[in-house]
Every structure is written in structure tokens, then in C-alpha cells.
């Protein structure tokens, strides 16, 4: 791709920074995302902001944080069905004879001092994945570094991998069931309980300030900045709000690392998905049906819900357009996650596509593209080119207190001194403001305490076009 600067009014370097302040007044509209006002906001700021979409769809929350470290948490349950892996080959040559199987850590048990955390229990029936043969757990030896079960076949067969040979091979899967063969006058079994995990994140502090001198607020310009407003502060209001939207969106999506500072940042959605979710790669410019099937397979394996938001940079969107919308007609798509109706969904910037029992609502996400956001074409690499993020829709109950939450949530921390429910707090002082200053200028500030919450990260997926 040729190196080029996007020319014209919308190119680099973008806005101008005035360290000592120039010229604005501010009224933060972002706190007023109420149904009657949504069309106005979309008309003013466009439909490219996922932050606004999240706000409109009610996927944000304001929470009181109970710690002094800006930390907020949620709880998730682990999988209810237990399994293990064979750690090393075991010989099984006599039909019906018990064998000792050493399990692999950490997939099968917690390799602590006693190795007590494992889904395996006495009397349990276990199935070998490679051939479906069942055995009963007749003894368990828990020692540090080696969790061993005695496996007695339920039938007159050997416990091997596959159907021939005399070896149960390392890596074969062992899937636990309850006591399926309790027999007469049976006694109690052991207890199974799902894991419970706590996921923490912190809220970062995002702040913007601007100053407006008396003359700057008085001198009428030749430009209508909207709504018959000819004064420069109007433009600055919009710039500041757009910047705040983008700052919040980037902080939530990409995260704000802080380990090298004394401040507290936040872990972003994408770093979490990169670590705990799945990635499906395809070759740039040659997206194929098989690639989409790879994606739906992964989503299906991880129990993903029916509806997904698909945030994409323009390159990937074009790859999708070139293939999918040329082949498939839009089927019956539920627009539940994007405002109940197709019209509303389209006005919020979504386009629907349904395949393999999943509804995808594509959203061209400007935040991934340097061209769209900053007005230039990168020449030294672009980590978000041909990038897409599949965000599952629907609500998940917290494992601790059953609070129902969207799977990707923007969490605003509640400051008790700020009016309830305000996501972005604005205040002002100056010569025409309620709090007077001696200098003939007004100062406006806004602040947000925000972070992300990702529930069931394994159901998210990254679709990435790779360059050959």
C-alpha cells in the first residue's frame, strides 16, 4: 500500500492543542443518552462510536466501588462437567483388569501439595474419549505431582486408546460422569462442585479540560458550527466530547497499562480476549466461507450465544462484503441486540448476517483504523488492520449474586460526591460561571472513571486477516 497522507480538512494532524486554553464552553451531552435524544446524538456524532452504541443499548453501568484500589469484580462459574488427560502411556493387555492411570496437571488436577483439586471421585464412571469405553474409579492416590486413579473396566475389554493395541496413550481424554452403576443398597458418593473464579479489573481516570477567553466567546465567526452557533466554543464543545468518547472507547477496548507508573489504569477488552478468547486467522483479501465456518465452529465449541456484534476495521469489512454479502441473502435475523428493529440497527451502524445458527451484526469500527480516526495511512505496520472482534450478546448471571450483566460491559465508577448515574462528570468555573474567578475566562472540565468487564471471555473471538 502506498504511503500517503490523507489530504484536506480531515487529514493530519487533526485538532490543535492549546496548553493555555483558548476558547470553549462545554455542555456534556454524553450523559443524556435518553430515548428521545438518541436520534439527535446519532445525527451529531455519527454512528461510528461503539461507546454510544453501548450507551444506547444500555450496556454500561455506574457502580459504587467498595475498595480503595478502584477495583471492581465479577464472578464466573467453571464448567460443571469434569475431565482429565492421561499423562503417560499405560499398558492394558488383560481384558477386564484394572490399570493405574497417572493424570496430567494442570488439565486434570491442581498440582498443589496434595493434589486434592480434581474432578475424579471414587465410584465415578469415566469414559475414554478415543473409543467411548467406560471404567469405574476404584482407587485414587493423591500425591504431590502425581494424581493416580485405579481404573477398572465395566466390561470385558482393555482400557486402551482407540480400538487396537495394548496402550492407553498419553493425551487421551477421560470424561467423568456420576455413579451410573450404583447397584443395590448403594451408599453415598463424593461431592462435585464447579470452580468459582473472581475476575478483577480497575477503573482508570480519564480527564479533559478546556478554557475559553472572554473575547473568543464573543467574536462571531463565518462558520456555522451547528444549530446556528457561530462562536468558536461550540466547535470546542464538540471536539472535546468527541475526544472524550474516543478516549473512553480506546481505554475500554485497548486498556491503559499502568504497571510502570504510580497510577491505576485498566485492562482492556481486547487484551483480555487475546489472552482468554479464541483467534481465527484468514488471509487478507481472500476471506472464504471456510474461514467463517472456522469462526462459527469456535463460537459453537465455547457455547456462544445466538447473537454477536462484530466490530471490524474497514479492510476486514470489505473482505466480508466481497464474499458473504455477494453469496448469501440476509436471512431471518433477530435484531434483539441492536435495538429490536432492522431500521434501528441500521441507524446505529449495524448490518446483519446469519449463518450456522448465529446472527452477526457487523459494525464498521472506526477505532481500529488509523485512516478513519487520525487521517493518515500507516506505513510501518498496523496492529489493527484486517481486525475484527466478535462480541457475544445477551446477559450472564453473576455466579456470586445473580446480577445479570451483558458479556461486555463498560463500568463507570461512582464517585459518591457526583450526582447518581453520571458517567462523565462536567464542571466549570470562570467569570461568567456560577463559581467566579478574577480572570476573564471560563474553564471547563470533564472526568470519567471507567473500565471494562468481560464475562465469559472464551465466547468472544478475534477474526484477523494475516498478511502473506
Amino acid at each position, binding site marked *: 500500500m502506498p504511503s500517503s497522507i490523507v489530504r484536506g480538512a480531515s487529514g493530519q494532524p487533526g485538532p490543535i492543542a492549546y496548553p493555555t486554553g483558548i476558547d470553549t464552553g462545554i455542555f456534556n451531552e454524553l450523559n443524556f443518552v435518553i430515548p428521545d435524544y438518541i436520534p439527535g446524538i446519532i445525527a451529531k456524532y455519527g454512528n461510528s462510536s461503539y461507546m454510544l452504541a453501548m450507551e444506547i443499548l444500555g450496556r454500561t453501568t455506574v457502580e459504587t466501588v467498595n475498595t480503595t484500589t478502584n477495583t471492581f469484580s465479577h464472578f464466573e462459574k467453571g464448567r460443571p462437567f469434569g475431565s482429565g488427560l492421561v499423562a503417560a502411556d499405560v499398558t492394558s493387555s488383560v481384558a477386564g483388569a484394572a490399570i493405574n492411570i497417572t493424570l496430567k496437571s494442570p488439565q486434570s488436577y491442581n498440582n498443589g501439595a496434595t493434589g486434592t483439586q480434581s474432578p475424579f471421585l471414587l465410584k465415578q464412571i469415566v469414559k475414554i474419549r478415543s473409543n467411548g469405553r467406560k471404567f469405574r474409579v476404584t482407587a485414587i492416590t493423591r500425591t504431590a505431582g502425581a494424581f493416580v486413579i485405579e481404573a477398572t473396566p465395566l466390561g470385558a475389554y482393555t482400557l486402551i486408546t482407540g480400538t487396537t493395541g495394548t496402550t492407553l496413550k498419553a493425551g487421551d481424554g477421560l470424561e467423568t460422569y456420576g455413579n451410573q452403576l450404583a447397584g443395590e443398597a448403594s451408599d453415598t458418593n463424593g461431592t462435585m462442585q464447579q470452580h468459582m473464579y473472581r475476575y478483577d479489573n480497575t477503573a482508570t481516570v480519564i480527564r479533559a479540560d478546556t478554557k475559553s477567553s472572554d473575547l473568543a466567546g464573543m467574536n462571531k465567526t463565518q462558520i456555522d458550527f451547528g444549530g446556528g452557533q457561530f462562536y468558536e466554543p461550540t466547535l470546542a464543545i464538540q471536539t472535546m466530547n468527541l475526544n472524550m468518547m474516543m478516549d473512553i472507547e480506546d481505554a475500554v477496548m485497548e486498556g491503559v497499562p499502568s504497571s510502570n507508573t504510580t497510577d491505576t489504569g485498566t485492562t482492556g477488552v481486547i487484551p483480555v480476549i487475546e489472552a482468554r478468547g479464541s483467534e481465527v486467522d484468514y488471509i487478507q483479501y481472500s476471506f472464504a466461507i471456510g474461514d467463517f465456518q472456522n469462526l462459527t465452529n*469456535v463460537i459453537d465449541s465455547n457455547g456462544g450465544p445466538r447473537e454477536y456484534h462484530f466490530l471490524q476495521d474497514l479492510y476486514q469489512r470489505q473482505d466480508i462484503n466481497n464474499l458473504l454479502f455477494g453469496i448469501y441473502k440476509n436471512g431471518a435475523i433477530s435484531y434483539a441486540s441492536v435495538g429490536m428493529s432492522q431500521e434501528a440497527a441500521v441507524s446505529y451502524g449495524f448490518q446483519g448476517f446469519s449463518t450456522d445458527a448465529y446472527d452477526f451484526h457487523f459494525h464498521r469500527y472506526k477505532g481500529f483504523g488509523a485512516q478513519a480516526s487520525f487521517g493518515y495511512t500507516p506505513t510501518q505496520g498496523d496492529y489493527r488492520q484486517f481486525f475484527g472482534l466478535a462480541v457475544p450478546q445477551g446477559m450472564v448471571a453473576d455466579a456470586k449474586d445473580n446480577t445479570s450483566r451483558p458479556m461486555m460491559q463498560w463500568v463507570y465508577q461512582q464517585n459518591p460526591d457526583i450526582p447518581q448515574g453520571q458517567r462523565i462528570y462536567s464542571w466549570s468555573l470562570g467569570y461568567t460561571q456560577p463559581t467566579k474567578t478574577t480572570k476573564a475566562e471560563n474553564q471547563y472540565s470533564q472526568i470519567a472513571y471507567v473500565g471494562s468487564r468481560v464475562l465469559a471471555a472464551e465466547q468472544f473471538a478475534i477474526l484477523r486477516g494475516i498478511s502473506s
Partner: protein
Amino acid sequence: MANALAKAPSIKNVKEFIEVDGIKVIEGSTEHSYLIQEYDPKKRYVFELAAKNLDLGLPVINMRTNRAEPHKEYKPFQNLVFTSQIVWNNGRVGIRYYDGCESIFISQQPKEKDVIDQLIKQTRRRNFIDGKLVVDGYERMLLMYLNLCSWNADSPFRTQTANEIFIPKNADKIATEETKRMDTIEEALQLAKDATDTKMYIHADYLGIPLKDYDSQNDLSTKEVRALYRKRALQDADNFIESYGNKSLEIKYYINKALMEKVISNRLNPNKAIWDKSGNEICDISGLKSNEAISERLFEYSQVEEGEEFLVQLKAIYNK
């Protein structure tokens, strides 16, 4: 065309190509060696993702144990892309893997759409699960694809623009590196054991090994310093060996010692370093205030011709 060449450019270095499985390569070239590479059909070969997970800072807490879950090195799932372009015989060439196809080179593969469709359908998807892809040795074409393709960060044929997706987990290479590391540690330990006491104190000073007990402020015995010195050799073998034979460390040590013991001072004139006992001038130290700066200046002086005598005298005092 005034600038046209008078004659056609000559063809340079016409090389002899041989054909391996229908692919032309120069005999003995890297391309050739990769084409004829054999794999043990009874072994399994492992490839792992090149990118490891970043530490997110906040661990996941297992509420049953109230302890942090171990950090997972790799993402749980990433698929393998079966098409790639590589630099082959100095040109860009396409390769693609299909199960059951006898070549990975697109130029040698079937061209009929029906056959290709069938090949695509019958090709099993391969994925990196928890960062690892394990391939049986009898999958020769898949292994060849994995070793050649541009997604392999270690492939000599990768294009500059390709994403680095995975690397082969080469057991021999890991073992070689491990052996080398153990050799280095052994060498460092041997040096630490055999060093003379003087040498050890000089080197220990550079390595920052304490010579006093922090609590009691007693000087550590030579035996105690030796133990710490050997321990450091074990912990930081590379740096230990690298700095062990460094002569300048010795000189700097002597200079610092001389300054501390007032063997060298500037008591007669703040701008001149002198031998304190005789009052003989060593060199000019005008404008230097800190001990470090003076020490550095004296070291620089010891390295030039005029400072040779100073160096001889210094060594005569300490290097007994």
C-alpha cells in the same frame, strides 16, 4: 532512445537446476535441503505460537483456594492457515496444504475446480490448542508446509511482510541451548572457585557483593565472601564470566581503594591529585568534585602514556 543499451545485458551466473518432486532447485541450496528433508514417521513434531499472552496484571482468583490461577502462556485457540506465499528461488511462490495432495506447491497441484473443492473439503482443520500444534511425523507434506510457510517465524523462506504466527519447537535446539547454558554455569563456578583472594575481592566489588554483614556491620570473612561470590557465579553466569577477566575493573578497584584509604588525595591543592605520602603530583583534577569523577579521571590518566608510571606505582602498592 539515446540512453538505450548498446547490447542486451548478459545473463549472469547461470546455475544448474535439478528437479525434486517436480520442483526445480539448485543442488545443495537451502531450498533443496528443505525439499529432501525427512521426518521420522514414528515421532511427533510440535509447533507453538510465536506470541505469548501478556501478563494482564490482575490475576484470576480461584475462589475455592483463594489463590491466583497460574498465568496461561498462550491463547486457548488459534487456527492454522493452510495457504502462504514464500520466497523460493529468489521469487514469490504460493504454497497450500491439502490433506492427501502430493505437493504443497500450487504450481504442482491440481488445477480443476472440482478437484480443488474436494481437496478443501477433505482437509482437516488444524489448530493451535493452548498454543501448541502437534503433527505426526508421517504427515510429510504438512510438516514441509509448516517448515516452509511464511507464518513460521524461523522459516528461511518467509516474506518480510508476513505475520509471524508460530515457531517450531525444536527439541535439539532447546537441548543445545540448555547444554550451553549449563556449560556457562559450570565455567563460572570453576572461575569463582579458583580465583585468588585478591582477584575475588576486586571482582566481588564490581559485582556488588557485600563485604560486610548488614546487621552487625562486621567484615565478612574470606570464606563468607567466597560463598557469596560462588553463588553469584551460579545466578548470573554470563555477566560473571564476561567481567571476570576485565583488567580495567582491577585498576578502578585499586584507584577507589587508594582514594578511600587516602593513599591518593588532593589535600595540597584541590585541583591536583597527589600521592598523599610523598606529595608528588599525579594529574590535574580541576573542576572535579565527586569521588566518582576523580576516580574516573585517574582511570583515564592510567590508560594514557603519561600515566604509565602512575599505573605501575598503583599496582606495586596493591598487587602484591
